[in-house]
């Protein structure tokens, strides 16, 4: 067997290092980004929000979400069983009280007993123009809801511009609403 030692450095020897460097960059980017690996972006972004028909929790009247078209609104998904929603609620109240506030629609999601929802709202305040009910969660599924609270920022044409996972802050609401109004 002829054994020869190559006295020169082979060019391919740097490839493992380069691949590794690339990997580190990807991992670093992921680490630095605020991306929650579990938050799922909505496939409805930039598309029309699915419409639904149900009843209103407080008035008992029929509610057709298509009727909302023509003005921008926030669709907030909540439930009395959800502690994060309780934490978020004062922010919604605060926003709803501002003069230029757009409508907030509060979808009561997976509420076992509608009374719980009513009691919760009377206790914490009601910033919602309408409170459609979704007792079995099917409307939520149609919207792509997987937890609560979640909020959809919908423009006047019914296009979803932004979906927020988790509790909203006043700053986020103001920022996103401003964007909604600009899109007009």
């Amino acid at each position: 067997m002829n054994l020869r030692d190559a006295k020169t450095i082979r060019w391919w020897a740097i490839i493992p290092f380069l691949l590794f460097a690339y990997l580190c960059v990807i991992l670093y980017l992921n680490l630095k980004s605020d991306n929650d690996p579990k938050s799922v972006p909505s496939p409805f972004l930039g598309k029309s929000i699915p419409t639904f028909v149900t009843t209103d929790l407080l008035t008992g009247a029929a509610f057709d979400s298509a009727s909302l078209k023509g003005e921008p609104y926030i669709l907030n998904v909540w439930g009395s069983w959800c502690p994060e929603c309780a934490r978020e609620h004062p922010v919604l109240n605060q926003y709803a009280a501002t003069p230029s506030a757009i409508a907030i629609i509060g979808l009561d999601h997976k509420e076992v007993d509608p009374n719980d929802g009513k009691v919760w709202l009377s206790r914490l305040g009601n910033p919602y123009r309408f409170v459609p009910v979704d007792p079995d969660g099917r409307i939520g599924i149609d919207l792509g809801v997987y937890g609560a609270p979640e909020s959809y920022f919908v423009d006047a044409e019914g296009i979803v511009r932004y979906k927020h996972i988790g509790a909203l802050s006043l700053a986020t609401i103001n920022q996103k609403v401003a964007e909604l109004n600009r899109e007009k």
Partner: protein
Amino acid sequence: MRNSADKFVRLRFALLFIQLFLCLTFFASSSWAIDPLPFKNREEEVRFQKLAAELRCLQCQNQNLADSDAGLARDLRNLVFEQMQSGKSDSDIKAFLIQRYGDFVIYDPPVNAETAPLWLSPFFAFAVLIGALLYRAKRSKDTGTGSTYPDPKPHKEDW
């Protein structure tokens, strides 16, 4: 040391909040992945189990619908069952869920331009390595080393 302990505790609470939101029912109720459903026959049951194993529970830390306790998982299982009963095919059901939740909900990623790196890279790696092997073999042939190597004498330890 004290400060890092405080920060640590606060961070733990923050993370707990996030986990609480996203996986609420695990703590709150004791719903469970064991959901007896009225299947018509064994084929249907097997088909359901296979489908549930391919779908992801979005509320959970990487579990499929079949194994997850979460409320959403139960709702989605019921939905899948209903759609199966009404005659929808597997691909119909998957398309229904993808339309609402995105590709994230399926554990088998689609084949498209974005996922091309995923599907092609293993074959690419294999091709590169095999190419290197063949290249080396060709080179040693070309340099005309031939085989000055005498056949090793068999030895008791040699195998």
